[in-house]
């Protein structure tokens, strides 16, 4: 029975990983070195580096990569600043309400992603409600749709729950006695927050930042629907090459180049944890 249990414990997630992470990765890896062709599927197997070289040297692809990193680097701290007080508020709620409040907080994010993005389009569109409010206040119509502002708004709104959830998990496990001890020793509330609450939630902060940063790098729907047409982000470019140009090898090469960008923060966090 002991062998069986251990085997199941390892086999189930291992199979899962291979099936849903390993196999796609391997396929992407193979296609990245192939030659585009007008066949079905649209490539011929090969082992050439041209696709990777192109993706790393052509300014169009380079700018897309850089643009994605910039968007992710700006939206992640915004999500952190907005999500931290929300998570702390939830974590401080009485235990019997906590799960209900968490559910209520996450509920709006749960369904109808496209419906919600369309609601934002409705709000932000030229001569829409936001422009009307701007005019009414005498500030002029901000005309936000298809600007970077709309892009950032949409991304922060969409990925906020990915920040709140790990922060909440981390903060709801915090030892309240430590905060009381700091107050007892003479630390006023802001000092307790900065010197005890925040440092002890660093693992949650790291997890939340990764959970936002990584998918934002690959995001392609929000830039398409809300952002400026000029915003060439890497997710959008991969999508375009794959479905638009049917240039699978270039799309795969781009995806392969994005991988280290996604893994860098994971590795950094792991390194930092091991040192501590």
């Amino acid at each position, binding site marked *: 029975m002991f062998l069986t249990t251990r085997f199941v414990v390892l086999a189930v997630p291992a199979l899962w990983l291979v099936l849903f992470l390993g196999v796609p990765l391997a396929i992407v890896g193979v296609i990245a070195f192939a030659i585009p062709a007008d066949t079905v599927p649209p490539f011929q197997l090969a082992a050439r580096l041209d696709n990777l070289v192109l993706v790393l040297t052509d300014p169009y692809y380079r700018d897309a990569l850089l643009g994605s990193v910039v968007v992710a680097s700006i939206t992640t701290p915004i999500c952190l600043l907005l999500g931290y007080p929300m998570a702390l508020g939830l974590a401080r709620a009485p235990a019997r309400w906590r799960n209900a409040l968490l559910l209520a907080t996450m509920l709006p994010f749960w369904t109808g992603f496209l419906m919600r993005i369309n609601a934002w389009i409705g709000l932000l569109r030229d001569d829409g409600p936001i422009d009307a409010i701007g005019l009414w206040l005498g500030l002029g119509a901000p005309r936000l749709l298809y600007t970077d502002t709309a892009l950032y708004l949409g991304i922060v709104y969409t990925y906020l729950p990915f920040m709140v959830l790990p922060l909440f998990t981390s903060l709801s496990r915090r*030892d309240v*006695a*430590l905060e*009381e*001890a*700091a*107050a*007892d*020793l*003479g*630390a*006023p*509330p802001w*000092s*307790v927050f900065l*010197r*005890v609450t925040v*440092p*002890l939630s660093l693992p949650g902060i790291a997890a939340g930042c990764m959970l936002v940063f990584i998918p934002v790098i690959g995001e392609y729907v929000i830039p398409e629907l809300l952002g400026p047409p000029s915003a060439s982000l890497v997710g959008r470019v991969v999508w375009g090459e794959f479905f638009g140009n049917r240039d699978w090898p270039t799309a795969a090469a781009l995806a392969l180049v994005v991988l280290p960008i996604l893994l860098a923060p994971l590795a950094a966090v792991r390194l930092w944890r091991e040192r501590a």
Partner: protein
Amino acid sequence: MSGLVVEGLTVRFGATTILNALSLAVSDGEFFVLLGGSGSGKTTLLRAIAGFAAPDAGRIVLNGVDLTGLPAHRRPVNTIFQSYALFPHMTVAENIGFGLRRKGVGRAETAATVVRMLALVRLEGFGDRAVQRLSGGQQQRVALARGLAANPALLLLDEPLSALDRGLRQETRADLAALQKRVGASFVLVTHDQDEALSLADRVGVMRDGVMVQVDTPAMLYERPNCRYVAEFLGAANILPVTVGADGLTAQATGAGIVAARAGTPGPGLLALRPERLRLDDPNAPNRLTGVLVGRSYRGEVLEQTVDIGGGTILRVARSLRDGLAAVETPPGAAVVVSWYPDASILLPCS
């Protein structure tokens, strides 16, 4: 007035009254122990003094200063938490210096005080250690050093020994008593362990259901409890219903006359008898009840024997094994006489 004064303190959580108009005075430099079972309100009293539980009524005054409205970080009171609550992301020295730095003490002076506190708790050279690497006993001493670093007028200790092993606990108990005399601050310690209370305290306050039942020195509490609850909570006690008459006591079960050293108010009462003050072998003790030996329980230093004196009453008689188990000869089933001297008769009001 010098020392801690608590007046009519009431704390409610929702509909439950945790502390009920409780009053208490602790003198300057006194080692005061709050003793009570779970739910007695002893920890809430400590938290109210520290500033973590808001009172619904009453005042808390320390050395003439009213603390009642002050937030925790403004009170000249420090707490040793039951879990120690050491900051895991700081070194030992940073933990001990935390309070001083927050109070605006400079780096150099803080470092000097930290060294002094480490010496006080015999942890010289441990300043740079990570807190998690310490043993339970060492963590407890760091918590003490941290609590005492800012030289508080009053130190509150919430079951500070409960997380330690039995052997270490007894050792640390002696250290704690010595430390308190050395630093001279008032200590208020919360515990549910009667041995701890009796051996550490200058005075003990026994709490029950948010009320202070009796406040007294350890010997007075043990030898002259003022109610059945205190008699049974501190040590073992045999309880016999008696009738107090003009000429003495009568056991209700057997009708036997009983002599007590102190007179009681006439009417029904309860007699408490400590097992170690009952004898099976003393022909001179004036109080005598006959019975049958029905059981024994060996505890190494003590043998506890149970005697059925009739009327459904079983008395527990504890005999110190100062001559070893071989010296005890009475076999189970034997007829015995349980006897005791008048000053061992503890007369309590009914219920």
